[in-house]
């Protein structure tokens, strides 16, 4: 199976809110320089899902990313988990667009890559939390798609897909090529092995510009009026006592006093 995994590099989503600030224009959420840049959480799950399918069925896993900068090092590190190739669309203008713009760029890149059976994306990026790029990409490519997929297998030439729904899950059978957006429960990205790290560090990343894709500009469809941090100041009453038992009792009494229990 030839699988393309779309990966996005984002500021560490586990970094505390105190390491970020809203810029003066009230438009961007800017991380401190010390915040590391990592693979978006659900993209890691998508990659693990791809690697498991490759373990079972062979084929190649190609990483695809859109970025303003030359992110070769990050892509090589990500390749080292066991993916085969990486394609980077490096263009500041294209990378500055919204989820819809990204979907158009990735669609153009995938058409240029050519042969594939499956495209996997994370269910939502850790920075935008939009969940738009994956399904929008499927629409541009004319592929059947499913979002919030927790498990995927390939049997008798078809995909068997388990997707999360309210109060349970549904099982779909899908023809390839198809696009799925992946959620994390079963897919935790494996560590890179030494041989893979060495191999990956020598891999060339195929790099394309907007011109290589025949794109000059792609339209954004979302206008952001402003970005702000929610005000959530709570006064926390720390219950201190001689023993944990006393503290627990004081807490129970405080909750009773508030009419909660």
């Amino acid at each position, binding site marked *: 199976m030839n699988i393309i995994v779309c990966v996005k590099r984002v500021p560490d989503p586990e970094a505390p809110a105190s390491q970020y600030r809203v810029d003066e224009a009230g438009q961007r959420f800017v991380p401190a320089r010390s915040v590391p840049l990592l693979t978006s959480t659900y993209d890691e799950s998508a990659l693990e899902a791809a690697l498991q399918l490759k373990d079972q069925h062979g084929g190649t896993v190609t990483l695809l990313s859109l970025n303003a900068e030359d992110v070769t090092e990050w892509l090589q590190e990500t390749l080292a988990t066991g993916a085969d190739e990486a394609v980077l669309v490096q263009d500041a203008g294209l990378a500055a667009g919204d989820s*819809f713009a990204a979907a158009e760029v990735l669609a153009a890149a995938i058409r240029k890559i050519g042969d594939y059976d499956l495209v996997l994306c994370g269910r939502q990026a850790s920075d935008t939390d939009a969940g738009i790029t994956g399904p929008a990409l499927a629409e541009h490519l004319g592929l059947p798609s499913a979002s919030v997929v*927790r498990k995927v297998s390939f049997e008798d030439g078809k995909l068997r897909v388990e997707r999360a729904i309210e109060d349970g899950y*549904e099982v779909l059978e899908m023809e390839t090529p198809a696009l799925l957006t992946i959620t994390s429960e079963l897919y935790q990205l494996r560590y890179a092995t030494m041989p893979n790290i060495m191999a990956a560090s020598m891999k060339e990343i195929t790099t394309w510009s907007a011109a290589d894709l025949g794109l000059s500009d792609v339209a954004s469809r979302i206008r952001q009026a402003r970005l702000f941090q929610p005000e959530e100041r709570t*006064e926390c009453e*720390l219950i201190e006592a001689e023993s944990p038992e006393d503290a627990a009792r004081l*807490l129970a009494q405080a*909750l009773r006093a508030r009419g*909660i229990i």
Partner: protein
Amino acid sequence: MADARGVLVLAEQVDGKLAGISFELLGAGRKLADQMGEPLLAALAGSEAQAQELVAAGADRVYLLDDPALGQFLLETALPAAEQVIRAASPRLVLLGHTSTGKDLAPRLAVRLGVGLATDVTALSYDAASGDVLACKPVFGGMAVSEQAGLGRPQLVTVRPKATEPAEPQPGRSGEVERFAVDLSGVTPRSRVVERVRERAQTKRLEDAEIVVSGGRGLGGPENFKYLEELADVLDAVVGASRVAVDSGWVPSDMQVGLTGKITSPKLYVAVGISGAMQHMAGCSTARTIVAINTDPEAAIFEKAHFGIVGDFKKILPPLTEACRELRQR
């Protein structure tokens, strides 16, 4: 779309019943429609009786899609059906639920219609100056909020379940129900639903729980959830978990509370061994009272909680459970 007018709600029904989200969308839609001085519309693949319920809940007109192919949700048929009804109704705003259906449908609809989309929206407002509906949505795991407007018409929004007040039905309210014929002749699906499985670790839903007792990384392992279960038993509460606990395989995924899990709105949320990362808080920040139990005094949860105890849950929960049991018996 030219002459875009009205707010259109894409209602959902499951197993013959209208989903709660349908009433929440009508509630939010009614407020906006009234502000704009325009009608509130709804579209539904369902029955005449369900359409009448939507009218009672505020829809001025319901487009009833009764094609049997649409009985059960399949993206490949729902997508062209939704596109057709939207083009026919020509609304200026379409509201969908941020449900498994909405997540599948909305982005592809936006591409087909050539418009924008705001997802997982928690608040909506009408800005008369620009003529846009502004939608607030969490970003960066909930650390920030982005106020957005989709470009083009209609504007498309998926609304977070339980974020908006449901419309109250007014029996006897009048509105039109129009049967809408969908043309699916050009559609050859390449996917099919094999089965749907109901799965719930506990009998009560987290989203509906009045009290939630939740555990995270600090519990150390699945066996320690028993401490939470004992407390939950006494408080008649539902047990939840952080994403770490779920991804570590300690508890099933339907117990996950957070931005990509269940959104709870209880009167009491007890967070045990949970650090307080924003993506988790997004699932419980509207709780009226939050209690944090954690060994780390620097944990972010203590900035979000109303009460906190710094200490070992193994020493705190049993006496807490006992004390609550005694108080409840009085």
